[in-house]
C-alpha cells in the first residue's frame, strides 16, 4: 500500500513536470531555443495567485484566471523584447545566455517586490481527498493535477494536428524559411507558442504550489530544470514525449525519496537522464528523420 501511495504521489508530481515540460518542448521545437526563464514564469504565476487570493482576498477562480493572463502576456513580452531581436544572431548561445539573464531578472524582481521570506500558499483545489481502503489516500490536488495534465495533453495534440495555427507550428518547427514561403507568419506563430507555453506554466504553478505550498522567488527554478530534464528525457520537441518524460521523472524522484534517500533523489533523477541520453541520445520518443538529398 505504501508503494502505491508513493507511486501515485510520483505520478502527480510528474504530471506537473509534464505540464511545464510541454512549454519547454513546444518552444524548443518551434523557436529552436531553450527558454531557461520558463521556470520563473511559473513563479510569477504563483505570486499572482498569492497576491490576488491571499492578499486581496478575491475569489480563487479570478486568481487563476489572472495568473494565466499575466503569464501569457509575460511570455509573449519576453519573446518579443529579449529573444526575437536575437533570432538572426549568429550563435544560438546568445539567446541561451539571454534566457538565463531573463531568468535572474524575474527572480530578482520577485525578490524586490515580495521579499525573500517564504510565503504560505493556500491550496486552490476545493476537492477533498479520496480514501481507498484504510491506508491509501489520494489528495484532491493529485486528482486535479493528473486530470489537468491529461486534458492539456489531449487538447494540445488536437490543436497542433487539427487547427491551422497548429499546422503552422509544425511547419515552422521544421523549416522557418519554407514555412514563410507557404504564407505562414513565422513571428506570430512563435509568439503563439510562447503564449501557450506560458499559460501552461501558470497552470503548472498553481498546481505545484497547491501541492507544495511554500512560495519563494526561487520556487520555479528547480521544477523548471526538472521539467527541462523531463522534456529531454522524453525527446525534446515531442508533445507526448514531454508527457511520458514528466510522469517517469516524477515517479523516479518520488520512489527514490521513499526508498533510497530524499537527499539523493535529485542526483538520481539527473543520473537517469545521463544514462538515457547515453543509450538513446534523442530521448524516449525523439524523432530521427532520415534525410535524403
Amino acid at each position, binding site marked *: 500500500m505504501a508503494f502505491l501511495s508513493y507511486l501515485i504521489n510520483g505520478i502527480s508530481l510528474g504530471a506537473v513536470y509534464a505540464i511545464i515540460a510541454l512549454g519547454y518542448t513546444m518552444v524548443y521545437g518551434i523557436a529552436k531555443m531553450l527558454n531557461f526563464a520558463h521556470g520563473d514564469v511559473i513563479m510569477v504565476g504563483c505570486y499572482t495567485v498569492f497576491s490576488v487570493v491571499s492578499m486581496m482576498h478575491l475569489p480563487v477562480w479570478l486568481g487563476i484566471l489572472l495568473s494565466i493572463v499575466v503569464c501569457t502576456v509575460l511570455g509573449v513580452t519576453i519573446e518579443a523584447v529579449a529573444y526575437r531581436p536575437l533570432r538572426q544572431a549568429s550563435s544560438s548561445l546568445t539567446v541561451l545566455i539571454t534566457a538565463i539573464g531573463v531568468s535572474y531578472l524575474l527572480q530578482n524582481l520577485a525578490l524586490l517586490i515580495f521579499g525573500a521570506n517564504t510565503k504560505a500558499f493556500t491550496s486552490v483545489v476545493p476537492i477533498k481527498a479520496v480514501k481507498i481502503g484504510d491506508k491509501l489516500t489520494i489528495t484532491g490536488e493529485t486528482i486535479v493535477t493528473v486530470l489537468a495534465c491529461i486534458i492539456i495533453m489531449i487538447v494540445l495534440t488536437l490543436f497542433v494536428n487539427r487547427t491551422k495555427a497548429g499546422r503552422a507550428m*509544425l*511547419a515552422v518547427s*521544421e523549416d522557418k*524559411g*519554407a514555412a514563410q*514561403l507557404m504564407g505562414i507568419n513565422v513571428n506570430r506563430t512563435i509568439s503563439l507558442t510562447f503564449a501557450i507555453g506560458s499559460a501552461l506554466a501558470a497552470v503548472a504553478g498553481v498546481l505545484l504550489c497547491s501541492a507544495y505550498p511554500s512560495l519563494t522567488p526561487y520556487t520555479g527554478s528547480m521544477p523548471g530544470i526538472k521539467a527541462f530534464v523531463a522534456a529531454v528525457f522524453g525527446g525534446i520537441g515531442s508533445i507526448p514525449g514531454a508527457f511520458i518524460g514528466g510522469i517517469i521523472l516524477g515517479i523516479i524522484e518520488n520512489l527514490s525519496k521513499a526508498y533510497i534517500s530524499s537527499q539523493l533523489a535529485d542526483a538520481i533523477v539527473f543520473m537517469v537522464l545521463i544514462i538515457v541520453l547515453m543509450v538513446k541520445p534523442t530521448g524516449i520518443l525523439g*524523432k530521427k528523420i532520415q534525410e*535524403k538529398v
Partner: protein
Amino acid sequence: MAMLEVKNLHVKYGVIEAIKGIDFTVNKGEVIALIGANGAGKTTILHTVSGLITPSEGTITFEGKDITRTPGHKIVSMGMAHVPEGRRVFQSLSVLDNLKMGAFTRKDKREIADTLDMVYTRFPRLAERKNQPAGTLSGGEQQMLAMGRALMSHPSIILMDEPSMGLSPIFVNEIFDIIKEESKRGTTVLLVEQNARKALSIADRAYVLETGRIALSGDAKTLLNNDEVKKAYLGE
C-alpha cells in the same frame, strides 16, 4: 505592363554587397531565366523578390503594387510562389500534408480540393505516395513535391531556384518538361539555374549575372548562340 519589375536592386549581407544594382522585368506569361556562376547572386535575388530578405536599395513591383518591404508571408497570397533551392519540403510530414501546407493562405476548401486533384493529375507519383513522409522520397520526387506544393497556392508567378540541382539527367528532363507545360498553361516563371543550356532552351528571355550585376540580357535563343555565353556557361 510588366508583371514583376525590379529596379536598381541592392542587397547587402552585413557589409558585403551581394547585389549591386540590378534591373529586370518579367512580363505575364513569360519564362525568364537568371543564369550565372555560383555566388553571382541568383538565389539572393529570388529571396529578395519573395520577401525573405529586405533590399538595402531599389524597388520591387508586383502586379502594380510595391512589395519591396512587404513581409514574405503576405506576398504568397498576392499570387507569388517560390520553389526554394534544395526543395525544402517538410521532411516529417506526409506528401499530402506538404501539399496542404502549400494552400495555407487559401480558404475555400472546394477550390483547394480541386487544385489538389490538378496537382495529382500533373504529378501521378505524388498521388501514389501521398501518405508517405516527404523525407523518404527521392530527390526528383521531392522536387516534384516542392513544385506541387507551390502550385497549391494557385500562383500567377512561380519563382524556381535551381530545380535541376542534384537530379539525374532523366529527372532533369522531366522537371524542365513540367516547367514548359506549366508555362503553356499560363503561369509566369522566373527561373534560376546553373544548367544554363537547359534554362536557355525553355526560356523566352534571360539575364546573365556576374558577381551581383547583370552582364548580359536578351532573347534566350540569341544568348544560346552568344560567343561569350557559350564560352563561360555552356562549356563550348
